């Protein structure tokens, strides 16, 4: 399973290298540098302060640029800033904004634009759902919660080019964090003039490789190369069109008739059909599909029973025969994709258990003995209504029947009702998925913190919370990852959840294009993409 990942990374690296060698001179003069891709649905918000979803993020990442941006390999590198200096204690950052950083209207990007943007996101009146990502800033949380004042927020423009950022505590992955859209600048006078500036292309101003030129709601978003972007030489595409085709059969057929050059989220019959095609690719996605256990509800009050329910799932069979999109069986929480000094975080941490029906049966019996149960309390598995979740739940149900001799009942609810139910803790075992917006183990492991609003399992573990808190302030990367490994080990020992698989994204990409980058936590990035044949 790991082999294809490696070869993929290698392939990307080679592609990038080859592109670097041929740079600029490659004769693509006659080919119209345009690509049409599928966003699947209308991006709900193209305002960096308000966007919370990957579709909006897909457009935002192309039209904006933060202080840091990503390179071809997904590593954070300086973007709108030309220099970053960190203080001794790791709490104060001084950024110098590039002299040639420009807005799409030609004006200069200033440090003040960043200060304004971040404070705007934190302003409780903005109602930003992602404001909590800025809580790392000194005074950010207090201001957002209406307890502090805007003057005390740790971001200040000393002059047009110098931005001083103060953090509550040192943060090991601050550069990665700064690549997120919540940290993009917005142009102060544009926003102040028109609160709804981001609703239409006419009033939209951004600072990235592309600029928004057309937004026909529910139909298409068009972005074009921005001549004012400081690094516009590396941008080859003149025009990117995002279509909003939601029906899987339709967008597959549009790909087949060349109306679309790139599609994702392929239905399983298409995957079967296209698996061997050159246009097909599988990219790990930084997320985990799982079942949460409510540790306050029998029988999942017992750790051995929880473990038994983990071991009784045959994940290999499930991913190869049921989900079929190249997902990786999950025997831990953090997916692959995080580069650490010891290699990939997942590879270094390894698998925490093996699927083992016999062991599962034994554990279940032991657990029942511990609790004095002669019969296991009835278990209902809850999931939100969807064909896909149903298929998986049914397979898991069959495995429990066969491997544990337990009859699990299935129940499904419509999404928003489901969120209510699980939030109130009215479940024993319930489906959930978690995808990291940032590629760092913290983003994943935070999910099960005792005070995390996402943690619906009622599982609270002081050791876990402490290890996570320590990891966050640890400056030395090696020690930091070590603490995170320890935290994950605690979680995997207690197993308040049942990880099923790590997600994968499937793409069909026209062979006419080169240098498309497929990040593990985002949709494909087209900054360096180039059309090489018609």
């Amino acid at each position: 399973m790991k082999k294809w990942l490696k070869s993929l990374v290698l392939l990307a690296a080679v592609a990038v290298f080859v592109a670097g060698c041929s740079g600029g001179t490659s004769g693509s003069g006659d080919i119209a540098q345009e690509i049409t891709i599928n966003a699947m649905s209308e991006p709900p918000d193209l305002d960096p302060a308000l966007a919370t979803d990957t579709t909006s993020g897909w457009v935002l990442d192309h039209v904006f640029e933060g202080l840091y941006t990503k390179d071809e390999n997904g590593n954070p590198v300086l973007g709108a800033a030309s220099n970053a200096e960190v203080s001794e204690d790791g709490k104060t950052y001084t950024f110098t904004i590039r002299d040639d950083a420009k807005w799409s209207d030609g004006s200069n990007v200033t440090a003040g634009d960043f200060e304004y943007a971040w404070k705007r996101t934190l302003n409780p009146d903005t109602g930003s759902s992602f404001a909590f990502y800025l809580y790392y800033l000194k005074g950010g949380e207090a201001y957002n919660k209406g307890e502090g004042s805007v003057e005390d927020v740790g971001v200040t423009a000393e002059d047009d080019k110098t931005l001083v950022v103060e953090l509550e505590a040192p943060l090991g992955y601050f550069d990665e964090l700064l690549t997120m859209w919540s940290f993009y600048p917005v142009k102060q006078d544009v926003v102040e003039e028109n609160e709804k500036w981001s609703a239409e292309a006419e009033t939209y101003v951004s600072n990235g490789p592309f600029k928004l030129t057309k937004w026909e709601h529910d139909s298409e978003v068009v972005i074009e190369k921005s001549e004012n972007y400081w690094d516009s030489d590396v941008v080859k595409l003149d025009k990117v069109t995002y279509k909003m085709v939601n029906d899987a059969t339709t967008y597959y057929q549009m790909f087949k008739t060349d109306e679309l050059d790139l599609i994702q989220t392929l239905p399983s019959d298409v995957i079967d059909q296209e698996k061997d095609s050159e246009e097909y690719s599988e990219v790990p996605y930084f997320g985990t599909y799982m079942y949460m256990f409510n540790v306050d509800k029998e029988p999942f009050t017992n750790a051995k029973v929880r473990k038994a329910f983990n071991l009784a799932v045959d994940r290999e069979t499930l991913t190869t025969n049921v989900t079929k999109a190249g997902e990786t069986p999950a025997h831990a929480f953090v997916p692959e994709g995080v580069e650490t000094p010891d290699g990939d975080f997942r590879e270094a941490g390894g698998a925490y258990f093996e699927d083992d029906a016999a062991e599962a049966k034994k554990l279940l019996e032991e657990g029942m003995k511990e609790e004095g149960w002669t019969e296991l309390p009835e278990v209902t598995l809850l999931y939100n209504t969807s064909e896909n979740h149903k298929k998986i739940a049914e397979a898991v149900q069959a495995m429990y029947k066969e491997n544990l001799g337990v009859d699990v009942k299935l129940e499904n609810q419509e999404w928003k009702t489901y969120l209510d139910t699980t939030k109130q803790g009215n479940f024993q075992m319930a489906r959930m998925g978690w995808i990291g917006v940032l590629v760092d183990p913290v983003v994943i492991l935070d999910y099960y913190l005792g005070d995390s609003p996402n943690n619906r399992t009622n599982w609270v573990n002081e050791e876990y919370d402490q290890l996570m808190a320590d990891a966050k302030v640890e400056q030395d990367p090696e020690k930091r990852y070590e603490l995170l490994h320890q935290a994950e080990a605690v979680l995997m020992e207690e197993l308040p959840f049942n990880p099923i698989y790590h997600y994968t994204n499937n793409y069909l990409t026209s062979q006419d294009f080169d240098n498309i980058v497929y990040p593990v936590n985002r949709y494909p990035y087209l900054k360096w993409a180039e059309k090489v044949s018609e």
Partner: protein
Amino acid sequence: MYIVKRLLTMLLTIWVIASLTFLIMKFIPGDPFASDADVLPEEVLQNMRAKYNLDEPIAMQYVLYMKDLVTFDLGYSIQSETRSVNSIIADGAPASALLGLQAMVVALIFGLLLGIVAALNQNKALDYVSMFIAIIGISVPSFILAPLLIKYFAVEWGMLPVASWGTWQHSILPTLALAATPLAVIARFMRSSMLEVTNQNYIKTADAKGLSKSKLVIRHGIRNAILPVISFIGPLFVSLITGTFVIEKIFAIPGIGRYFVDSIFNRDYPVIMGTTIFFSTLLVLTLFIIDISYRYIDPRIKLTSGGE
């Protein structure tokens, strides 16, 4: 007088629909701000609720909403915070309306034609062929027909684009897919209505008087037979021009069809209200226009409040 009274009833109807929808909507469990990434601190959540008046008691929310409604302000979407419900409807309605109108025209022309041809050739080959087409139209749902149309016309023969919107070519396949069922229903309706009329005494009289066949059919037959069809096409017309979820999804049409469905799944209260009011207003208006049009098609119907 009749018209004034009707207009008042219309307003009352819309108000009742809006109020009921408001009430029912508030009873659906779930929170518009809930998601699997439950990250909003209570303080921010309260702020956002306040933005949409959701922090008020339901009765107060209702009063506030009705107050805005009177000034045609439908508020802002919760899902897309920067877009007003008015602009969502204004952006989506033209595409839905255009598609619906085209489908309506196709369905009417061919439906009536099929129905009339079938009736005039009762129990002959043409009748069977027409009704066979009609039965297919009724029994094949649009979500089957649409992919079939795409498969042949767009993928296999490459005559038309698969989906999306913009040129007139883009609108052909969705129009056909959307028109099929109403076409079939109209054809069957027209056939039976026509058969009924042709058995009436006045047709026999006119026939006996030696009126030409074409005059008989057009003047006396169709004109009388079309009445029941008209009362049925009113609601049909409204449902066609306000967009259909399935067809718009399959053909990626930027209409408002999806908002009727998605807004409920998202608990996007302002959009649920906005689309419902938009739809019911159109429906009530169309019914009104149809009532009036009866008067001109059938002089026997009088526009008096006490009558029919």
